[in-house]
């Protein structure tokens, strides 16, 4: 029944979209073919094209371009100069403009993709500023302030397009662009973009390269800007430096923020609203940047998802709660998932030899050895700050090792990136779950399959049958895995609205979705209730039964003793003890490291006199519980 509701809603959405397309395409019939409204409508289409690209980049991939106007300028100038001066056809010139725009984008942004988000913002801002100067300065090419005059409209089959024809061309390109980007953000690439924005480590754990995804988003955005620029030149017929000031870039940013960053309709709504209120802004001409600034600030503070986001949350609040919608509380429905059959996993072995890692003067790992046989469960325990998580991070290549060997399935992993190691079959969960809060639980699991999915970028954007079939298959598998870990009833909930205990299970499902043959669990039991703990233990047993290898970092010693076949105790970066759980936990040195010597001595002091205990006890500061 829920499926049929969703289907009918999808059908309604499709009808609305079809109606919109008809209205957009029929518009010139109602307007003066050479009039101002048609001119404005064409301009709106041009801006929508650029905004769609910027929304993909800033909204989904989280890379704010503050100089997007410069990329539109590249497309516009290339088209204008090549058609007017060189006599190229519009189509060829526009293609060159798009290619140039994308190329400049790659060259310019290549360094910043390895760094924090704001580097990219700064570099695009600087680029726009430099580019604006260069247009004026490089008079020999760009004709300076005079600009390029007399850009001709394109011809189709030998006919030079009338204004209405240009409008239709722009409208069709905007609609196709909207559709392509829509398909993209709903695919593995879209999930990858959001992961890069919200949890880069999760992207890497799923085998996705943040740098490549950022580059992809930027190239696509630059291409859209180039296309917009080409039509900008045609539609205005004149291209001058005054068209591409810093203000122009800010305008695009505001358009996207106003509509709603990271929403599908945001760029369209934003551009539309901006064009509906031009009178308001002409009266405030000299206040314009102040208005833009205040609007950006207010939107980011009070409506981070813009008009679309605000409308959606209003709609959600007003909509009466339907009976079918209220999901039952987690505690009453307890699907155990034991019934779900999963194919066997051929577990990977892990061999760590003399692994060393220091941070400045602090030795986090001082020569650690660890050996985990395929299909077994090894536990790493030790007080906080003993290097457990660092060990996981070095094994997963999140940190570069100083020295030592890590062999995964017998192969040395030196030089591999975290995403490559994930591709080798290493899955992991995080101490604090790294889920993408704005995506559904199901999408979070699907993120895990990023590296497994084979469909090409064009196949995904064009919804080719092969890509669709693969996506469908993976979706079914993700549902199955959610059932396997026992949270299938939460598949359509937003990850941010899922209880903490479930988030941990979703992370395990995500790792399994990635085809993990060795799973590293970083304190999976932290913060779980007794029942949740029980379910976790059962789940780990079932994963082991499939044949996967499990490495677990855990403070919960009962859990460790019950599931691990091998325990390694770390203390201040070195292995204190290692062996079967019973033997290790009986070791006095281990107990001393874990509980502090005082605790042990107090135990022992039951037989001793009080003052004698005071003599022996050498209290050692217990490391504070770090994050």
């Amino acid at each position: 029944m829920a499926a049929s509701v969703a289907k009918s809603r999808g059908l309604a959405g499709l009808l609305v979209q079809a109606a919109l397309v008809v209205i957009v395409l029929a518009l010139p019939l109602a307007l003066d073919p050479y009039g101002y409204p048609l001119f404005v409508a064409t301009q709106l289409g041009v801006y929508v094209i650029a905004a769609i690209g910027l929304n993909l980049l800033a909204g989904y991939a989280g890379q704010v371009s503050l100089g997007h106007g410069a990329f539109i300028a590249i497309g516009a100038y290339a088209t204008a100069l090549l058609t007017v001066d060189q006599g190229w056809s519009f189509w060829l010139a526009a293609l060159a403009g798009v290619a140039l725009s994308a190329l400049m984008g790659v060259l310019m942004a290549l360094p910043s993709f390895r760094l924090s988000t704001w580097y990219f913002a700064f570099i695009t801002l600087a680029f726009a500023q430099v580019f604006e100067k260069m247009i004026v300065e490089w008079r020999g090419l760009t004709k300076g302030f005079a600009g390029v005059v007399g850009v001709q409209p394109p011809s189709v089959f030998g006919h030079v397009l009338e204004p209405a024809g240009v409008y239709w061309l722009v409208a069709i390109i905007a609609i196709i662009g909207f559709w392509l980007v829509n398909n993209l953000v709903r695919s593995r690439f879209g999930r990858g973009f959001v992961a890069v924005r919200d949890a880069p480590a999760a992207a890497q754990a799923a085998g996705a390269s943040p740098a490549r995804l950022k580059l992809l988003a930027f190239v696509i955005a630059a291409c859209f800007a180039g296309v917009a620029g080409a039509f900008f030149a045609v539609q205005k017929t004149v291209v001058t430096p005054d068209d591409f000031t810093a203000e122009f870039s800010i305008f695009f940013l505001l358009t996207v923020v106003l509509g709603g960053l990271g929403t599908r309709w945001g760029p369209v709504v934003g551009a539309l609203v901006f064009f509906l209120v031009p009178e308001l802004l002409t009266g405030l001409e000299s206040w314009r940047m102040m208005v833009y600034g205040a609007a950006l600030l207010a939107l980011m503070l009070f409506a981070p998802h813009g008009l679309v986001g605000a409308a959606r949350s209003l709609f959600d609040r007003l909509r009466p709660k339907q009976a079918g919608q209220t999901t039952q509380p987690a505690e009453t429905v307890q699907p155990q998932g034991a019934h779900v059959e999963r194919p066997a996993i051929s577990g990977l072995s892990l061999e760590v030899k003399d692994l060393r890692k220091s941070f400045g003067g602090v030795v986090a790992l001082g020569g650690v050895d660890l050996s985990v046989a395929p299909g077994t469960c090894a536990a790493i325990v030790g007080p906080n700050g003993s290097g457990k998580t660092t060990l996981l991070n070095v094994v997963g290549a999140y940190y570069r090792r100083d020295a030592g060997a890590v062999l995964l399935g017998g192969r040395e992993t030196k030089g591999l990136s975290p995403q490559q190691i994930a591709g080798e079959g290493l899955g992991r969960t995080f101490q604090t779950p790294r889920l993408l809060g704005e995506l559904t639980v199901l999408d979070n699991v699907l993120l895990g399959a990023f590296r497994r999915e084979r469909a090409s970028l064009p196949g995904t954007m064009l919804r080719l049958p092969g890509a669709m079939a693969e996506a469908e298959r993976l979706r079914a598998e993700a549902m199955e895995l959610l059932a396997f870990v026992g949270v299938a009833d939460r598949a359509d909930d937003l990850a941010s609205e899922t209880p903490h205990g479930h988030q941990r299970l979703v992370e395990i499902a995500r790792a399994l979705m990635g085809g993990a043959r060795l799973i590293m669990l970083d304190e999976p039991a932290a913060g779980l209730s007794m029942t949740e703990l029980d379910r976790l233990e059962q789940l780990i047993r079932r994963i082991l039964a499939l044949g996967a290898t499990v490495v677990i970092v855990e403070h919960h010693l009962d859990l460790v003793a019950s599931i691990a076949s091998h325990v390694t105790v770390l203390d201040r970066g070195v292995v204190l003890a290692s062996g079967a759980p019973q033997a290790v936990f009986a070791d006095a040195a281990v107990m001393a490291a874990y509980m502090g010597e005082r605790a042990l001595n107090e135990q022992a002091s039951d037989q001793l006199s009080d003052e004698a205990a005071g003599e022996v006890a050498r209290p050692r500061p217990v490391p504070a519980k770090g994050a």
Partner: protein
Amino acid sequence: MDIDILARGLVAGSLYALVAVSFNILYRPTNVFNFAQGELVMLGAMVFASLATVLGWPWYAALIVTLLGVGLLTLLIDVVAVAPVLARSQHGTGWVITTLAASLIIANGVNRIWGPDPIVVRPPAPLTTDTFSLAGMTVSAYQIFLVLLTVILVLAIEQVYRTRQGKAVLAVAEDREAALLRGVNPLRLSRWSFFLGGAFAGLTGVLAAPVLYASTGLGPALLLKGFAAAAVGSIGNNRGALIAGYLIGVTEALGAALLSPGYQEAVVFLLVLCVLLVWPHGLFGRPFARTV
């Protein structure tokens, strides 16, 4: 080649280094790179120029009011534009846009109050901007003072980071939660850093005014060159920023002399791109980044 290029490069480079240091002061405990910083420098120059030149206040009074005013405004930026966004989400998209918005508001506001005409600011006696010849370079007493003062300020700030409070700042930069557990209040430190980073930007504006004149158009160029000095010199590293500032100042002066003044920004931009391509974390070390 003209040795004056070196003098011009060092003077401009000192100013870029000061802007970079103001970025760093604010960045270290907060991990926020304030996009309004360029306009804050501009505001400092304008406020000081108005008080000292137009109203005829003594320079020290004008200086104190300028530093307090710009510092408090920056604190306001934190309270209004940065802290609420950071409370919601740690990823950078939010504060990049909100600090940019603050920058737009300040720029437009200041422009409306003061208009586009630059104000000439004379340095306090006995310093003058009268030029004389020194080892073949045309320099002024104020320029020498500016270069020396910049070095002293950078070294002094490095000393501050060695104190207990300074170490607390570094601890918060490394790990906010862990620092919290050791009794350091990150929120209060953030507020202080915004105030001090803003006050330092105001000071930079005051120092820049006699060289560049106080003008409402100073912001964007200083923002980007300050960023360039901070990035090339490794974010958070003040000595690195000083050397990178010189490097950028001299490169820019060379570009202007050899090509044309119109190309100097392009030259600096290319330099930054090339450096970041080879050394993504700048020339002076990479900070330890906590990932997971």
